């Protein structure tokens, strides 16, 4: 692999992270939290030093191959988290480094699971950094680097492919740089619109910005202990529900709409399935929880909010569904945790597109059993799907299930009940946030053993980067000097 080039790109990423810490410093200055603000400066110093040092490595061969793309992306996300955790520790807000690491990984991977029991005690600049990490992690750091840094465009698709969620990655326009810029522009504009909507709902500006970051990245960190329920406003609940769904849609479709190909965008099979699943889940939960609220409006509001929050893998909660709701509704939410939203969005989960492909190839298998000679290609988005794509989707699913089984088993060493272990694992690998039982929406992950926290952090990274980059990173053959 091309180590020089890989480290060169990693250096750029560290510089970018230093840059991304600056808004938090500004927030610290505004709110006069000088002690907490100062805790950012050593991290920025380290990042700048390492980033500038790596400039010395200017490589002659700038080619990036598929495995380099995986390794760079995986390392980048680990390094981002390693350095991003430092301010929490230095400021004393989260004294244990492992806790801080878990918190920032949860931020960057847009999971939103927290180890803090009292969020409101944190200084505002750290709260901002936590929420801002959702926003960066949602669209991706590498995509950001591609958008702002001058870099030769050849082969950079490997970087983007390793970072953007979904089974296949398409560019919007021929040049990678412009594609990355369009994606970030759409993302930023939608975030600003959401902030404006929240301000109309009488949410304070700082809260609106932080919650907009959490929604846009489909993360789920709140700056209130009670989460969105704190505001107790139907308007805010509805606005956030709608936007969580919007951020769960493939961003390529927004581009199609922008250039006037609206019909094409609305014809997307993945989008239709996604909305259909959300609708069906809302209806099911509505019927199952109506007896709790005795009001069509309130029941609908809570059912839609929870469904939208979980299927988009955001993880906000307007009610404590883990304790209040019947088991059936909880089961629906766990299913939604696994399904996730659309490919090419900021959401996690298996992705509706993959589920669609898996179901269709399963049905095709059944049909083959009945008519062994039937020629029936699996079709998705109106086109026959290449068997190679189906194969890699199956491989992905198998790895996904294996990782869940192994991690759940390990977590059972630490926690007492099966529901907690399984839903903690599912919620982490799918980047959702809340689970059931002891990790429900009003609980936190603070009680886990340090090793379990690291395991869950790893799972969050595996889920955000869609398994392969992390596995490639830990494959010895990638690191061997000789070619084999």
């Amino acid at each position: 692999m091309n180590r020089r080039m890989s480290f060169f790109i990693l250096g750029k990423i560290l510089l970018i992270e230093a840059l991304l810490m600056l808004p938090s410093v500004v927030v610290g200055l505004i709110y006069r939290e000088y002690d907490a603000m100062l805790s950012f400066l050593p991290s920025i110093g380290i990042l700048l030093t390492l980033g500038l040092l790596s400039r010395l490595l200017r490589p002659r061969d700038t080619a990036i191959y598929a495995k380099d793309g995986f390794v760079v992306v995986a390392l980048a996300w680990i390094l981002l988290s390693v350095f991003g955790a430092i301010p929490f520790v230095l400021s004393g807000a989260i004294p244990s480094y492992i806790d801080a690491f878990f918190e920032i990984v949860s931020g960057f991977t847009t999971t939103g699971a927290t180890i803090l029991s009292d969020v409101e005690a944190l200084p505002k600049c750290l709260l901002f950094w936590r929420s801002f990490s959702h926003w960066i992690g949602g669209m991706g750091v590498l995509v950001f680097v591609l958008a702002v840094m001058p870099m030769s465009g050849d082969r950079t698709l490997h970087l983007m492919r390793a970072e953007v969620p979904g089974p296949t990655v398409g560019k919007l326009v021929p040049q990678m740089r412009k594609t990355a810029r369009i994606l970030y522009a759409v993302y930023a504009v939608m975030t600003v619109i959401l902030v404006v909507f929240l301000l109309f709902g009488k949410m304070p500006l700082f809260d609106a910005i932080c919650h907009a970051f959490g929604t846009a990245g489909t993360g789920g960190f709140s700056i209130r202990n009670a989460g969105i329920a704190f505001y107790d406003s139907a308007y805010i609940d509805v606005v956030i529900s709608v936007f969580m769904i919007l951020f769960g849609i493939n961003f390529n479709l927004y581009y199609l709409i922008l250039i006037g190909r609206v019909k094409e965008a609305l014809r997307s099979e993945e989008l239709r399935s996604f909305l259909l699943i959300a609708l069906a889940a809302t209806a099911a939960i509505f019927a199952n929880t109506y007896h709790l609220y005795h009001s069509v409006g309130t029941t609908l509001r809570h059912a839609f909010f929870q469904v939208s929050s979980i299927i988009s893998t955001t993880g906000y909660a307007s009610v404590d569904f883990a304790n209040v709701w019947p088991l059936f509704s909880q089961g629906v939410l766990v299913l939604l945790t696994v399904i996730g939203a659309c490919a090419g969005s900021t959401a996690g989960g298996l992705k509706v597109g993959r589920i669609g492909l898996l179901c269709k190839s399963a049905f095709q298998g059944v049909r083959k059993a009945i008519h062994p000679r039937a020629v029936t290609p699996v079709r998705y988005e109106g086109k026959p799907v290449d068997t190679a794509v189906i194969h890699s989707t199956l491989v992905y699913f198998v790895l996904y299930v294996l990782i869940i089984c192994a991690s759940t088993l390990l977590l059972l060493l630490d926690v007492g009940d099966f529901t907690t272990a399984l839903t903690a694992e599912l919620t982490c690998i799918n980047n959702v946030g809340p689970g059931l039982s002891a990790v429900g929406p009003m609980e936190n992950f603070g009680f886990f053993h340090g090793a379990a926290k690291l395991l869950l952090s790893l799972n969050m990274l595996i889920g955000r980067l869609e398994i392969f980059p992390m596995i490639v990173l830990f494959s010895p053959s990638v690191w061997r000097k000789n070619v084999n």
Partner: protein
Amino acid sequence: MQITIVGGGKLGESVARQLQAEGHEITVVDKEEDVISQLSNTLDVIGYVGNGASYSVLRSAGVENSDLLIALAETDEVNMLACLAAHKLGVEHTIARVRDPEYDDHLYVLREDLGLSMTVNPEKAAAEEIARILRLPSATHVELFAGGRVELISIRLPSGNILCDGLKLSEFSQKLDVTALVCAVERNGEIVIPGGDFVPLAGDLLYLAGSPKEIETILKRIGLLAHRVENVIIAGGGRVSYYLAEELLRKGVKVKIVERDVEVAEELAEKLPRAVILQGDAADYELLSEEGLNRTDAFVALTGLDEGNILSAIYAGKHNVPKVIAKINNENIASLVKDESLETIISPKVVTGNDICRYVRAMAARSPEGNVLSLYKLADGRVEVSEFRAVAGMDGLLGIPLRDLKLKKNILIGCLVRDGQAIVPHGVDEIREGDFVLVVSRETILNELSDILEDR
């Protein structure tokens, strides 16, 4: 500019690579999914799978927003249809690759109806380049600029030549009483743009620019003007051979073609009655010797096999054939060949790629942003020769003696063309409005003439 390329084969890929590096937005359409995924992995382009001649495929690839469509698919018919469809969709410029001599001959009839701005024929272009080189056999390459008024040739200095007497370049023009300029020198694989105090050595590859007459004079003075090529042996009877033989026969050169396939040989004999067509294996050295390999003025290897071409060319070189040329389709192989008897290697792909890029540059020049009229790449693309037109308003450049201009490093003004006359510039000359200026540059991308100046 937005450019759509139909066909992602060898030529399509190489053109896409070059144009993408020059900052254009490239869309590639190919019917093979593998080709598209490979291309979009290695280049910063967007790909569409589909038949590039189909109206609906071109529409979904967004061709109507393109400024130019380049059709380089396998078959001529697809290329012409793709251009026609693109034309109907409102693409102003289209380039089609048309290779079949039967179409090529009568293309002027259809050109307008098909909306073609330009057709490229790699085999014909390669043949034309070979013919140019055969006119000046001591040159390893010959390029034409400014509508043929300026020639750029490369020659390898043999030992004992008067140019390698330890004289500086600046002393030559007086000694030889000619005005031609050494634009670039390749020595041991390194390429330099020489200053006046550069001392050439035997074995250097010199790039000389000047009017064709001056070039001929200087070659005569330094004793490198070999006598005219009067008979040529061509190995292989493909399209390049056909075009080359036709061109050479027109100039009265005697041509022998060795072709293995009986039918092809018969067809050639029918089309080229004045050439001698031999049916046999070009790798059969016995046959070549029998047909007078050691008495011929030039040997050109044009079979479909790169390795065979190289080997038979080297073989001919070892048998004292004065000029040996080999055709190659894969340039990676060419870079491996370091044999002094084989200096001239022609790749139809590279020749055509340069032609297309030159057209694109000219298009960009007409747009407000740039004004490069044409661009040639020398020495595997390490040196560029760009042609500019000096227009009014270039402050700090026009009307100033060249020796007072602060040029960037690795930049040389190779030639001026004023009122149809080529001028080899000296320090006292100045660039005037309306001049065509040839600029030789290394490791610098020039978008306009004023880019040659040191940044202020």
